[in-house]
């Protein structure tokens, strides 16, 4: 068991710069920032009775179209509120930055802004293409396509956009013709998307639709996979080997799909230690380790976790209380090791400028010298915090690469959890 008390105390008046020699270094006067944005404000006033009336009608329509008319409180929210509720970015409605995604293979990232545009930043290049489309509103999630240099999937309010941005082009405003619009009736707003690791399939989820859509992007066709219960699908995550897909719902249950024949099993939220013990007996992949970690530590107020690709640093974004003064959101970083035993050691807190709270974070997919954590702050800045370390595997043990490779061997024969315990 671990608690946050064993962490070195965070330095409140300084910004974290990097990790070296196993400690986090901060500076009182931070240097240049790569990104600043003026938050845009939009205000439209609508008569209250009209807003309430249309929200009720919309909720009724959603209940009717939701399979078996399940009663779920999240269906009464408006589209924007729903996106804000289920988005990975904290305080999505007010944030200048709506979403962020690193490219899995090269040094470029895409960031969605408050004005519904997307900018792509590349290292070693001053050209920053801006992507705008009339259907691109309320962007909730971005993800680059794996095994591709140019495709970016954008989860918008009413549809999915797939941008094909030529990496060698110097144009700053790619035309709308570069984007494919994928939509399905009843499947909006889309709050989560996930490409399969092979790049062949894109899965999208919406909190109002109990079916998640599996898209064949080039053919622009979708296969809906519908399961009763849950009231919608809010979060999707593929395992790195592509054999499992996690689908979370707004209620206390989530599903794990196996991707060979696309069958699923329900995992109700674990309560009590008996199920935790069962989990320990399984041979678990990296993907399932995350699940175990959350329930071992019983952290209920975290909002996001991110694991670096080498498996050595784990960052947890702990949501603060916006009402309390001294309870801001913070990022806690753990050092992890998965062999010979799974170890989790505290490393420190990542702090930003005074008054800035972290909203979103993501590790760079392939930083050569350790790990690089990118944090989006509430003041519209994006900072990159490097963690310099040598990978534990290079010092003599099994390299993480080999460990991962052995884990990926023949997962089609791995039974799902329920089959193994019965």
């Amino acid at each position, binding site marked *: 068991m671990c608690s946050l008390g064993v962490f070195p105390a965070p330095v409140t008046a300084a910004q974290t710069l990097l990790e070296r020699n196993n400690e986090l270094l901060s500076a009182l006067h931070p240097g240049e920032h790569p990104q600043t944005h003026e938050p845009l404000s939009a205000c439209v006033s609508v008569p209250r009775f009209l807003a309430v009336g249309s929200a009720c009608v919309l909720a009724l329509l959603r209940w009717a179209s939701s399979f078996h008319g399940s009663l779920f409180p999240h269906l009464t929210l408006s589209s924007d509120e729903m996106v804000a509720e289920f988005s990975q970015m904290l305080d999505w409605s007010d944030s200048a930055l709506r979403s962020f995604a690193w*490219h899995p*293979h*090269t040094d470029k990232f895409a960031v969605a802004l408050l004005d519904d545009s997307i900018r792509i930043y590349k290292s070693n290049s001053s050209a920053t293409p801006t992507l705008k489309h009339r259907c691109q509103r309320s962007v909730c999630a971005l993800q680059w396509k794996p*095994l*591709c*240099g*140019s495709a970016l999937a954008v989860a918008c309010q009413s549809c999915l956009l797939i941008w094909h941005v030529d*990496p*060698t082009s110097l144009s700053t405003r790619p035309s709308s013709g570069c984007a494919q619009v994928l939509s399905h009736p009843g499947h909006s707003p889309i709050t989560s998307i996930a490409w*399969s690791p*092979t*790049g*062949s*399939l894109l899965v999208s989820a919406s909190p109002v639709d109990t079916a998640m859509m*599996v898209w*064949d*992007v*080039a*053919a*622009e*066709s979708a*296969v*809906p*996979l*519908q399961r009763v219960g849950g009231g919608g699908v809010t979060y999707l995550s593929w395992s790195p080997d*592509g*054999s499992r897909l996690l689908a979370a719902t707004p209620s206390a249950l989530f599903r794990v799909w196996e*991707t*060979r*024949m*696309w*069958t699923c099993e329900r995992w109700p939220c674990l309560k009590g230690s008996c199920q935790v013990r069962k989990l320990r007996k399984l041979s678990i992949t990296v993907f399932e380790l995350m699940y175990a970690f959350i329930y071992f530590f019983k952290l209920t107020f975290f909002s996001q976790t991110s694991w670096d690709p080498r498996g050595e640093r784990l960052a947890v974004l702990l949501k603060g209380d916006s009402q309390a003064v001294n309870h801001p959101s913070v990022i806690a970083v753990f050092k992890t090791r998965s062999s010979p035993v799974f170890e989790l050691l505290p490393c420190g807190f990542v702090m930003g400028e005074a008054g800035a709270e972290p909203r979103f974070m993501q590790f760079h997919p392939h930083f050569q010298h350790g790990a690089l954590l990118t944090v989006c702050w509430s003041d519209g800045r994006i900072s990159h915090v490097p963690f310099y370390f040598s990978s534990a595997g290079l010092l003599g043990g099994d390299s993480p690469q080999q460990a991962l*490779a052995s884990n990926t*061997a*023949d*997962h*089609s024969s791995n039974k799902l959890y329920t089959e193994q315990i019965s």
Partner: protein
Amino acid sequence: MKCACARPDSHLIYFQVVIWRAVASIAWSVLLLPVTAAVFVLLSRFSLFHPIQWISDCTSLLAASSTVFSLVVLCGVVLITGFFNLEFYTLVPAIPCSRMALLGTVLHPRQCVHSLVYCTMGMLVMWCASVTIGGRYSTLGTPCRQSESGEVVTCLNEYHLFILLAGAFMGYSHSFLGVVQNMYYVSFQPIQQYKYPRFKGCLPMVVKCSVIQALYSARNFAAFYFFFGNSIQPLDSLTGLLDFSLLYHLSISGTFLYLTWYLTVLLFRICVTEAYSFPVQSTFTEDAEQSLPKVLAEKNTLVMKFLALQDLALLSHHSLSRRLEVFSLSQPGGHAHNWNAISRECLSLLSELTQRLVAHQDAVASNGRVKSQSASSDTRSASSSSSGKTPRLSVPLRTPGSVFKSSVGGANNALTAPFTPDVNSPFSSPAIRRLVGQQDRQSPCFGTEQSPHIMRRGPKLWSASTGLSHLVAASFSEDQFGVVQTTLPNVLSCLVVLLEAVDRHFKLPHASSKPVRTICSMGDSTYKTLRFALRAALKTAIYKITTTFGEHLNAVNISTEHRKRLQQFLEFKD
């Protein structure tokens, strides 16, 4: 039959797999018939204000002998429909080049027989439906007036006749749409699912399509009957035709009719495209014809080839043990027979597509020859669409759209399986666009339609390329004997050459235009986007190999311009 004489073993496996699946789908359709008939009975006797009477009417009707007889007739109809599915199904969509070609297809004797049989079946089903509805629809003749001598004269029951003729009209329109929308085109799905969940997932779409199609047909037939029907009162007037009860019963009968046919088509598609696992190497000589490499080389029965390519893609993605079998050496001798056969087949598929693309581009470049080529491709496509079994000498590989999906299998089956992107799809869209009147100022149907035709075979190709690239990528860590490395230069150059041909193809006019979105229809229109899927899958295949091998690719012996192209992939600049 030609193929029977040439390859009795391949015919045997065809029977074992495809015919058996078709029979299973017909059996399921027949089993579903009582369910749909019961729903129809419930809806036809629907009475909002007398629910008890409604329920009791329905239960008594379901047990009546007339209903049982109708069910027997409907079973016969389903059997004939299933037989036609088996006879007419195609893995390569037929894309007519122009209106004249479409007219030619529609007036073809085979199609005429098909339409005639469907008209008859439509009338039979509607007769059963009208008998079930009862009331004023149940008999053809009704006593209408009495003559002076007191005899009862039988008049024609116009309502019954109306329903019967509507059945014939719906049967003919179903047959006609089957040609236009390529309803008999069978494509493979992007993801594998068990049959029951897939059926459950498709059922709402099928019901929606049948309702919409029934309403359209009812509207069209009512208009047709009003203008051309030479009938006595009361249907000869607009108010007579707009009788709500009549239209309601016509609509639900039409829905029942279309639902029966669409369910048969859906079940056939689901059963035939289910993944079949071929043994990679057979232990017994009599089973040798059923092994994966042999079936991949199959030239006669396209569906078996497609199933083999789908299996290849799946094994390359998911099955370590079968991949190891592919990479294994033969005992004794130490030859990599499995890999050589599989890679040779896939590479030939891909290079065949490359040749077709290059030939097409040459033809387009010199406009004059385009027409003659299209004619030949038309005949080829016509013959290919007629039956998946007809042996064709120059059958380009058709990669079912699903093939691309399945190609996910990492198996290096990079057999450059010709991405045969559904060239046909590009063609099909121009063809359909022509039908709706958009004129192509370029050379006629040949130019734009060529694209779909060339790409029609596409689905096979990208499943083949996907499978191949995945196998190659997997061999990086799993190939113990190095069987793949010797063929790696061939694979890479084949993929790069095909990619260049595809890129050049996309520079042609109309090739990069997206097809128009069609409304809900039972016709599978994935063939229209095959060329895009092919290009995407080809790029993913190359990326898979470059990301797996990384800098090791510099040691592979390939030509400099191919190396430059691969360098772009290594740097993610493509």
